[in-house]
């Protein structure tokens, strides 16, 4: 089992990351490490998501959050917002 440059390119695109080819070696090493699990028989074992399998608690249908736009938008520079909207380079549909 090994990563090719192309494999890494695809993964990098899915993750929106730019990486240089030196990372392939690192990823390969990690892959060797984790691939140890392929030797283990896990038939009939349920996957474990959480330590305590509990049920999801339900919240009441009540509005609890006020308008926090000013606070939240203080996180970005003026050039990144306009008319209350967040600005990004144009999305082409």
């Amino acid at each position, binding site marked *: 089992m090994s990563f090719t440059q192309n494999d890494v390119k695809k993964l990098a695109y*899915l993750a*929106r990351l730019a990486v240089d080819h030196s990372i392939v070696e690192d990823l390969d090493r990690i892959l060797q490490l984790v691939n140890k699990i392929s030797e283990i028989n896990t038939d009939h074992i349920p996957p474990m*998501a*959480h330590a305590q*399998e*509990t*049920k*999801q*608690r*339900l*919240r*009441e*249908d*009540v*509005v*609890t*959050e006020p*308008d*926090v*736009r000013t606070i*939240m*938008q203080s996180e970005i520079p003026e050039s990144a917002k*306009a*008319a*209350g*909207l*967040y*600005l*990004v*380079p*144009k*999305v*082409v*549909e």
Partner: protein
Amino acid sequence: MEWETVIGLEVHVQLNTKAKIFSGAATTYGAAPNTQACAIDLGLPGVLPVLNGETVKMAIKLGLATNAEIAERSVFDRKNYFYPDLPKGYQISQFTYPIVKNGRLNIELEDGTKRTINITRAHLEEDAGKSIHEEFRASSGIDLNRAGIALLEIVSEPELRSANEAVAYLKTLHALVKYLDICDGNMQEGSFRCDANVSVRPKGETKLGTRAEIKNVNSFKFVEKAILVEVDRQIAILQSGGKVIQETRLYDSQKNETRPMRSKEEANDYRYFPDPDLHPVIINQAFIDAVKQTMPELPAAKHARFMQQYMLNDYEAKILTASKALANFFENTVQIAGQANTKLTANLMLGEVNAALNREAKDIEQIAITEQQLAKLVQRIADNTLSGKLAKTVFELLWQNPQDPDLIIEQQGLKQVTDLGAIEGIVDTVIANNPKQVADYRAGKQQIFGFFVGQVMKVSQGKANPEQVNKILQDKLR
């Protein structure tokens, strides 16, 4: 070559809860941008989702209303992809274990054909925000008010065979979610959004053809057009020996054509996995029973009851129960007008009211006339104050200017003349003024009876009671 159309519909129903599905922010439509997007909706570092219980109840309602299986255990999964209107870089949805499965929707086409369409599944998920592209030259503006609003995605089996059927299915589903009061059904505001998966295949072929997904068509009319135009497009491709590409397309209503969406060329690997911030939703029978208690009367049951209780025929009951609001309006009006006047009320609603609503492309929710006012109109017909014809006139006036019908009758002097003496007087005058016609009638020309009726009505300005006019004329013309 005969072709068969195969359509599957995915409808995103925006649930009308007060707060969002995983946060306590408000869901009101039309708020100023980003004033209803709290830290959780914005996906700030460290925030966590907590499930709004009302969304679960609404999903169960939809499940019960479609005879579906309600999953005892359903799981929220993350659907991972990058888009500016998706703040966390993933959408919380349900992939492997949806909350509702295997339902059915009974639809009826315009020609009366009935079909049962299977609903594969319905699952809960959060809505994304909105992107505004037109306002800024080199940028797009993102509004996250909609991010996190609860959606119920309802997926049908690809069993629909025409644009007609697709529209019938959508209209039925639309009425149902409004009936259940889980969605306001406002398509202009995006509360009910349809994606159509369309493919064609040679008639008799059992394998499915390659499908195209037409996204976000926001009116029944456009769904129909989009499907028709897409089917034609696909047939043309296949007939010329080409292959249909599996892709997402948008419907352009101006040009009446579909075109591919640029961004979705590469099949996105969504890497679904159970959301570790949430536990599975566990629903027991007691919970379902409690929800059942709060269910409103469903369309089919109401239809049957209307036929029985109000002595309506199948067609009449169908029209009057098409929407819950219409049915309620009718019942409330009957309550006020009196049970004895059920038939009159039904006729008025099926006739004048329906026509006026259609003419102005309005729903009953937008009618300006109140139930009290309509009931009063019914009563004035019943007690002979108004003739049938004049009742129509009064209705039109009411429609323009809703008020107590008695005021209109007063102002316009429209009271029906039922005074026998007065009618006799008019009849005598008409007979006296038209000796030739009288002679012809008495000689055997029965068909000119209508002439005399017309004359009497003219003189009485339409106010004479037709029954009495007929009776007196027949007496006097003998």
